[in-house]
């Protein structure tokens, strides 16, 4: 026996209540960490960007396109190494329309720009051996040769149950019609933040079948020779198109992602408020449980004091008891959020990287649980410490 053992024994006194309180704290902290995970994922999506890459989009909004003719003019700006472009496709799998994933139509330069961020882990053999273009990936030769070829992420393949070489048919929403694609390569991201649930295919396919040759692109992405000159290059590009029908906004890839995240508006704030509201609600539950536990044991606390237990010892025992419940529940909830959300490969609609719960969020969740325990235990602990023995024993003769 020790004082700590006495605390543990008290915890086991009403096992059902202890378990239910622990579970309520666990669920609360799980939700707090899950909501925090959404914020972490938004943060993560900003980190995808490279300092040596700039993104040019329509100045009015990302949803307005840019003419393809801008590519050569951007490529001619001093300091620009190579320019690629892509366009949001937004189709659905007609067999599973709610299982959304992102698709981008991109030119032949776009993927090589990102070659340091992913590896091609599966690829089809080319039907015809042809000389490789400078800088082209030999693993993508089959993809390059076929108009309807596409490249998919590993997780997308797993999620949809697709195989290399399979022909899939998507149903266009922005560009209506039935769109057959043949999977010619599979990529795996080097950085988790990049995500592995995206599909890439040839812009020329989209242009011919979906745009009627209009040649409009969503964004230009270009590499710089010297990242230190990013600001000057961006200004030069935007000045070039300032008075054209489609003025541009050029920014670093990180700023572009941050702008994309800002489209979420006040959602992060709302998530924080909801997270804190959950924590507060659970705090009240834990405090109520501790008050009940204390009330039930009033006479026992009187006995312990009669035996010589000091007020400080009683106070500490009650606070530790509350902290063990909330810390246990909090640690379970926080670690469960990390394991389930990251391990489960949750994806917030394909617009963002796979869901992340930073260790910082996990630790914050556990710390909040600990503080919750201390706060919920303080009130009953103070009452217990201040309790007069004669009142506790309820005998005044």
């Amino acid at each position, binding site marked *: 026996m020790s004082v700590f053992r006495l605390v543990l024994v008290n915890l086991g006194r009403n096992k059902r209540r202890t378990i239910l309180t622990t579970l309520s704290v666990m669920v609360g902290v799980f939700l707090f960490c899950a909501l925090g995970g959404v914020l972490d994922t938004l943060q993560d999506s900003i980190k995808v960007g490279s300092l040596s890459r700039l993104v040019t989009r329509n100045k009015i909004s990302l949803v307005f396109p840019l003419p393809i003719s801008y590519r050569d003019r951007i490529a001619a700006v001093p300091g620009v190494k190579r320019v690629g472009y892509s366009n949001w496709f937004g189709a659905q799998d007609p067999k599973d329309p709610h299982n959304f994933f992102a698709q981008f139509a991109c030119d032949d330069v776009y993927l090589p720009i990102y070659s340091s961020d992913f590896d091609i882990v599966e690829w089809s053999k080319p039907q015809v051996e042809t000389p490789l273009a400078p800088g082209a990936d030999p693993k993508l030769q089959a993809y390059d040769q076929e108009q309807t070829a596409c490249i998919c992420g590993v997780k997308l393949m797993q999620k949809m149950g697709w195989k290399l070489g399979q022909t899939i048919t998507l149903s266009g929403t922005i560009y209506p019609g039935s769109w057959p694609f043949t999977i010619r390569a599979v990529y795996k991201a080097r950085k988790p933040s990049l995500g592995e649930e995206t599909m890439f295919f040839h812009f020329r396919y989209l242009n011919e079948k979906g745009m009627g040759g209009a040649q409009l692109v969503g964004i230009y992405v270009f590499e710089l020779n010297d990242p230190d000159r990013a600001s000057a290059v961006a200004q030069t590009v935007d000045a070039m198109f300032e008075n054209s029908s489609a003025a541009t906004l050029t920014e670093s890839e990180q700023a572009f992602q941050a702008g994309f995240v800002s489209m979420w508006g006040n959602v992060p704030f709302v998530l924080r408020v909801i997270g804190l509201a959950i924590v507060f609600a659970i705090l009240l539950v834990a405090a109520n449980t501790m008050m009940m536990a204390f009330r039930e044991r009033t006479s026992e606390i009187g006995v312990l004091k009669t035996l010589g237990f000091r007020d400080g010892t009683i106070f500490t025992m009650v606070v530790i008891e509350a902290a063990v419940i909330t810390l246990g529940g909090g640690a379970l909830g926080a670690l469960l959020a990390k394991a389930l959300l990251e391990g489960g490969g949750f994806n917030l609609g394909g617009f963002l990287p796979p869901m992340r719960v930073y260790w910082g969020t996990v630790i914050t969740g556990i710390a909040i649980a600990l503080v919750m325990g201390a706060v919920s235990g303080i009130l009953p602990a103070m009452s217990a410490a201040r309790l*007069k023995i004669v009142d506790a024993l309820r005998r005044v003769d």
Partner: protein
Amino acid sequence: MAAVEVRDVRKVYQRDRQSVPVLDGLSLDIAEGDFVALMGPSGSGKTTLLNLIGGIDQPTSGAIGVGGTNIATLKGDALSRWRSRHIGFIFQLYNLIPVLTALQNVELPLLLVKMSGAERKKRATTALQLVGLGDRIGHYPRQLSGGQEQRVAIARALVSDPTLLLADEPTGDLDRKSGEEILQLLERLNQEYKKTIIMVTHDPHAAERAKRVLHLDKGVLSN
């Protein structure tokens, strides 16, 4: 020197706006090794006097000396420490911790002193053997009869070898046979182990076992 010296002690409780005097200038000496029974009608102040002597309540005025210490001057932690060393309480309703075994209940007072776990266990076992429950050390209170529970409570009161044993109606919740066993045990503790015992009781039969019987009425000693 007397084991207990009570000098001109007054105790007044405040109930709402009313002052309720319970003890009115009471003085009393109890010698070391004495066995005193405190009798009197309900509300006469028996338990209040016991609580004051045990240091779990404070007198409104007056002095209470136990083993030479004026406990009316002790407060907070000092009073708790003193209580753990000098007082063993036995309650009418035993007041054992239901989730602890007999042995763990008896060990409780020893958690407050520096002692190894093995030593604590040894002493608690000895105390339980002394009250005749050496074979029940692993039993929980719910697995014991009322008389056995009270014997565990006596073992808990004894285990730290206190100066004084204070018993508040120790047989009040027991049948006659069990009550008799408890009284025999208290008698034995007084005679063989020279323990000073103050026992509050309503039962004249129980009071007969004491060496001295004091009657309280309206806060004063009537004999």
